[in-house]
């Protein structure tokens, strides 16, 4: 194909891309460089300089011995805390979103569109506003300060997006599929299980990636609705980095930030291919 030859157009294209790549990689490189500098190097030089000497002590400290409160055991425990509620919350909200999308596209009834719009709109409420009423509700239900409570909150506020993704995807599937199955006598659950679900691979990937990122990186719900030993890694990171009147070790902070970001980075880099494939398969069509 002509596009493979090195024309001026191609050179310009690659140049522009290279420039954009630099802009996008800049912050990550800054973080990585500064996480392996010894502290005096950091304080003396500028943050964008190449490390004069390299040390991995900040990484070890961030994982094992950094102080996140009275205990100084680093981030390692919090890592598993996050996993313990992120995984259930992602699974549940994805499942609910799938069913909702299925109903809203294949089993429409009067008012289902209005319900969808109401759902979309309601998720715009700033999360800071719902902290107090949610705290009261969770307290009344007896699940405040527990993992169950935190999962509940994340599911509640994740449903709007998961429903959006699945609904937009299922809307591109031909309705004849379902109609034919109904004529054949298949019921609601059977159609979902036998027909819709097998076709849902791509959008499940998109939704899981999106939800995983949102919930893993959440700070506000994590800090308000969990306590002590079950706090997520974002809270530990915040405690590490935002000390008010103590001495700040910026290199440890950067190492800790990268550690906290590793799962989501991993997911995006590794599953990025499936992500785009999933979006291509129709997640975006209105």
């Amino acid at each position, binding site marked *: 194909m002509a596009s493979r030859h090195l024309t001026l157009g191609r050179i310009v294209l690659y140049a522009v891309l290279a420039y954009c790549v630099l802009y996008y990689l800049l912050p990550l490189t800054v973080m990585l460089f500064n996480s392996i500098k010894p502290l005096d190097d950091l304080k003396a030089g500028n943050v964008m300089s190449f490390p004069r000497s390299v040390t991995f002590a900040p990484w070890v400290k961030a994982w094992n011995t950094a102080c996140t409160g009275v205990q*100084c055991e680093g981030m390692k425990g919090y890592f598993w805390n996050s996993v313990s509620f992120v995984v259930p919350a992602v699974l549940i909200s994805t499942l609910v979103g799938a069913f909702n999308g299925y109903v809203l596209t294949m089993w429409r009834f009067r008012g289902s569109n209005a319900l969808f719009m109401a759902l979309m709109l309601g998720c715009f409420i700033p999360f800071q506003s719902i902290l107090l009423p949610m705290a009261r509700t969770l307290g009344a239900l007896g699940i405040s300060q527990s993992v169950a409570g935190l999962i509940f909150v994340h599911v509640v506020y994740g449903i709007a997006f998961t429903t959006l993704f699945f609904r937009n995807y299922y809307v591109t599937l031909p309705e004849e599929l379902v109609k034919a199955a109904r004529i054949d006598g298949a019921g609601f659950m059977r159609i979902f299980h036998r027909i819709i679900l097998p076709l849902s691979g791509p959008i499940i990937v998109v939704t899981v990636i999106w939800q995983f990122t949102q919930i893993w990186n959440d700070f506000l719900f994590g800090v308000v609705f969990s306590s002590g030993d079950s706090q997520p890694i974002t809270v530990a990171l*915040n405690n590490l980095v935002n000390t008010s009147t103590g001495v700040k070790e910026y290199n440890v902070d950067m190492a800790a930030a990268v550690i906290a970001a590793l799962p989501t980075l991993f997911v995006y880099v590794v599953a990025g291919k499936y992500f785009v494939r999933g979006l291509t398969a129709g997640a975006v069509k209105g």
Partner: protein
Amino acid sequence: MTRMKLAAIAVAGLGLSAAQAADIEVLHWWTSGGEAKSAAELKKMLEAKGDKWKDFAVAGGGGENAMTVLKSRVVSGKAPTAAQVKGPSIQEWGAEGVLANLDPIAKAGNWDSLLPGVVANVMKYKGNYVAVPVNVHRVNWMWVNPEVFKKAGATVPKTWADFPAAAEKLQKAGFIPVAHGGQPWQDFTVFESVVLGVGGPKFYQDALVKLDQKALTSPTMEKSFDTLRQVHKYIDKDAANRDWNLATAMVINGKAGMQFMGDWAKGEFTAAGKVPGKDYLCMPAPGTEHAFTFNIDSFIIFKQSGADAQKAQSDFATAVMSPEFQEVFNLNKGSIPVRSGVSMAKFDDCAKMSAKDFADDAKAGSLVPSIAHQMAVPAATTGAMQDVVTAFFNSNQSSKDAVAKLAAAAKTK
């Protein structure tokens, strides 16, 4: 095992558990190395008494995030045992009716005689103790790099009138006269040292604590703003949103001559291996030699039911006020003990000076609360006043306008 033996063991077990103490859940934001070490001391003391410490640390904003979390917890019905709350917020929480009455513990520990009157009043709600103080930070410090002054041929200013001359010399010699971080609380920290130095402790009390409109609109206030404008002339252009410890680093590295900051700055100097009196000087801010702006960290204690929980709270309060804890905690944190009767032998010279001034100024009545650190005035009013000072600092607003705006802000409920 026979049934009898099992029953006996069960009964014995019950008896044991009655004497055990409950969990103490403590909300705080001491998460850095030095602070965490200090808090760990308290944990050790409490565990020695058989109580279990459940840590609940939330950093950020000097307590902003922690306060959000605390409110949510109280609303959900699961208040912690103790929370790091200071200043008038103590009274605001008291008004909600959720705090425990610590008077029995206070009487047993003789708190009234160990704490200066000004401090004890902050810990009380309607005459009853509801909070226990941990430390005293002095806010009206000036941290000086003597090398820089020597090289510039300037003298360290003793009053605000001396300030411009010294700053000019520093600037001409190529140094940054004042290291500053442009965050609202830092701007106000400098401002209140200026007000204290220009107007004296009584004016400070009238204007900034009692919020007396006459004092707020007086020529002295305008002069304070003029002086603040002068200070602004001598900070570097990149001061906006700089963290306080990066400003301290400028003084440590010899790039700047002085910083107006509380005594937690000392930790940075110590971490850099600097010696007080030689590599750096700690001096009261110009004009405030005989005044002491205090910032006291304290814990409020929430009402709890059950004898176990109440015993735990009593242990907590007594431990915090004990001389052993006060010494160890403040050694690690850079502040000084709040109660009298603690030996200052292990503290460094700056801390010793601080402690002496604290006692003297308490007697002389020149011990004043810091507004920048939420010791004096309710949060809403503090916020509004901070907005005014920050807006003035970051613009070309005239002192007259600023005075009018400050007087209006002081009326915020």
